[in-house]
């Protein structure tokens, strides 16, 4: 089985260095050293890392909801129009951030795991929307609506929703006091964790609380990739028939001046946007933990510039913008940006309006933004559709369970489990299921969006059985809709609902081998007792 474990990624020649403490952080570390003790610091660190996991989990449904409201490739290649081009760019950008939020969730989980504590993810998404983030100050800077409330809705992609994204990623002011409660920026929250790590009470041994066999079960760096075909977007019109370089372009494909898809591709994430040796890190030392926290902060808010504040980018080559800047630059392409009264920090400098400007009306007219409802719940959808919606939330929760399960899978099998569990569920189940259900009208001119609820699948040990039961109920609901109107417009969609539930729960290969999501029960037998 050892042959299944991929080689460690090649070390990066010049990883960006650990962020030095600001004067305010240094003062706080001094205060902790003189007023706290080892037990308190360790307890605070563990509690705050679990909070960090829940902050990161909270962002993922919010970003994915907006992502799936975008119809990215109704037009492509040489025919792509300005609205579609913007929607594709917005989709790639939002997905590039969502992927890094999953990375942050994994990094915080790995630090906590190294301290001997099992990360808790299942059932830890927000209970309802709009939501505050855990311990976020409920009052923030003024938004485009003139309000200061920090309540993030589950809402389709729009100028206003981008403001809420900015509320999440708002950059930390230089030398601000670290806070783990009532924090203004996520950077301020992680600054508190950074200070706990720098106290005199902790040593490398605190991050070696597990035997080697268990240490090797942390989520390994080889599972992470910064880009994929969903983060990539075209810079402009392109010729989809031209082969990827460096091959010579065949004579038959030279008739136009458009670039090939490969040449037009923009990559919003870059492989050097991290501290330490790789984006995803396992943790054995204080240095490792500090690097993990730095990667989280830098990707979200930008690498700090001493005496100024956060920069616009998060990597040594300055190719990758921070989450804050990525979202602000999308907002800056909306026509509303030129006159918005939202309160933006001076640093990093807000961009000038970006052309060609788009408007929500134009995006909807071009059918590149789907009319998702705001803050939906399964119980709020029409009765006959509720189970179909609930299965989507069930898959979301099962993904969180599988993430918890990674820490229980023998190291030699982790890659296989990660591929068959995490990748298959994200790419082949959740992605396809959401793109299917978003074709279902739910009344009022709206279409079904994923509700990402904390649906109860029972104990992890029996969660696959519970997901299967939920899937069977959703299949029955879809079949009822087909039976009620066998020639109706929803027959094809409901057929796809049934198909993708099968992909999640029962699919097999040509040789009968399982090609569905793994049943995690074998890894949770000790938890049953």
């Amino acid at each position, binding site marked *: 089985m050892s042959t299944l474990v991929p080689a460690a990624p090649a070390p990066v020649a010049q990883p960006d260095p650990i962020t030095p403490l600001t004067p305010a952080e240094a003062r706080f570390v001094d205060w902790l050293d003189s007023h706290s003790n080892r037990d308190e610091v360790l307890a605070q660190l563990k509690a705050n890392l679990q909070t960090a996991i829940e902050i990161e989990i909270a962002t993922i449904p919010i970003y994915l909801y907006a992502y799936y409201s975008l119809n990215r490739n109704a037009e492509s*290649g040489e025919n792509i129009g300005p609205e579609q081009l913007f929607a594709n760019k917005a989709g790639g950008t939002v997905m590039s951030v969502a992927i890094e939020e999953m990375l942050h969730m994994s990094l915080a989980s790995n630090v906590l795991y190294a301290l001997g504590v099992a990360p808790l993810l299942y059932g830890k998404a927000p209970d309802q929307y709009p939501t505050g983030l855990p311990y976020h100050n409920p009052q923030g800077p003024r938004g485009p609506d003139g309000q200061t409330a920090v309540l993030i809705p589950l809402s389709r992609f729009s100028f206003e929703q981008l403001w809420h994204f900015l509320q999440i990623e708002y950059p930390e002011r230089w030398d601000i006091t670290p806070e783990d409660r009532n924090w203004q920026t996520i950077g301020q929250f992680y600054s508190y964790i950074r200070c706990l790590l720098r106290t005199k009470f902790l040593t490398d041994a605190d991050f070696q609380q597990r035997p080697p066999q268990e240490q090797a079960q942390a989520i390994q760096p080889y599972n992470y990739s910064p880009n994929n*075909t969903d983060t990539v977007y075209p810079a402009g019109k392109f010729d989809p028939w031209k082969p990827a370089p460096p091959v010579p372009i065949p004579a038959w494909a030279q008739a136009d001046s458009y670039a090939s898809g490969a040449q037009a591709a923009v990559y919003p994430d870059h492989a050097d946007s991290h501290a330490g040796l790789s984006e995803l890190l396992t943790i054995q030392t204080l240095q490792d933990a500090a690097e993990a926290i730095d990667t989280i902060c830098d990707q979200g808010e930008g690498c700090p510039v001493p005496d100024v504040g956060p920069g616009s980018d998060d990597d040594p080559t300055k190719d990758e913008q921070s989450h804050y800047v990525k979202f602000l630059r999308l907002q800056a392409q909306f026509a509303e940006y030129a006159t918005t009264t939202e309160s933006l920090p001076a640093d990093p400098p807000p961009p000038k309006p970006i052309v060609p400007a788009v408007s929500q009306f134009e995006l909807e007219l071009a059918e590149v933004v789907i009319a998702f409802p705001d803050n939906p719940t399964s119980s709020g959808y029409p009765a006959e559709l509720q189970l179909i919606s609930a299965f989507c939330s069930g898959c979301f929760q099962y993904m969180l369970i599988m993430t918890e399960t990674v820490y229980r899978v023998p190291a030699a099998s982790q890659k296989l489990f990660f591929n068959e569990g995490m990748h298959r569920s994200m790419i082949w189940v959740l992605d396809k299921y959401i793109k299917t259900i978003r074709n279902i009208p739910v009344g009022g001119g709206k279409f079904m969006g994923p509700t990402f609820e904390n649906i109860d699948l029972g104990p992890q040990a029996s969660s696959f059985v519970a997901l299967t039961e939920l899937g069977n109920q959703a299949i029955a609901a879809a079949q009822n809709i087909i039976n009620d109107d066998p020639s109706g417009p929803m027959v094809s969609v409901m057929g796809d609902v049934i198909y993708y539930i099968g992909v999640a729960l029962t699919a097999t290969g040509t040789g009968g081998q399982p090609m569905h999501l793994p049943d995690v029960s074998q890894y949770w037998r000790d938890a049953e007792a």
Partner: protein
Amino acid sequence: MPQPGQPVPTPYPYADAPLFPTSIGPQPAGLPLHSCMGLNSCRGSDRYGLTGPPGGKANACAGQGYCATTADHTCHVQNQCRNQGGCGLYGTAEEMNRPAKNECRSLGSCATPINAERFSTNGPNQGKSVWLRARAVFAEQWPERREALLAKTETSDVHRDLPESLGAPPAPFAATGPTYLWITNGNQLRSNMTACGSSGMSGAGGCS
């Protein structure tokens, strides 16, 4: 609204090439499956199989075959066997640097066959042809693979005259790999192959 792939290049440049086969022909026994054009290990091992394309002959040797013998799949981790992953769309930098070379089911990357337009999204091959990289990896591995196959000649249909150097892929595609234009017979049969992703940049029809 223009349909996917339009405008289609004209005239169709592969009028003399055989049609892309949607099913896989009879294979010599004991040969490893492979995921794309030019990655075959032996005479007669390709998508057309031992009988060759209609009106033609089976390929003559390793490296000359037309397209995949694996069960086609459309996405990352959906491969059913060793060396069946395509690569380029999803996957890690390390996986994308060795397309069509994976240890077992679910450890492979993206869709097969590997269309010529597909590029890697991560790693040292980022922005470059996946098929070219797959062919280069196959060529690097060929001496070792050849030795292993020669050792099996008593128990398989592997031809004893395995060349030390790979043959060239079929002429119309030798420099690029199989183009989506050929796979879809001039954009008429887009369902012949799908590849995942929402950006519309896989170079092939999307799977949703």
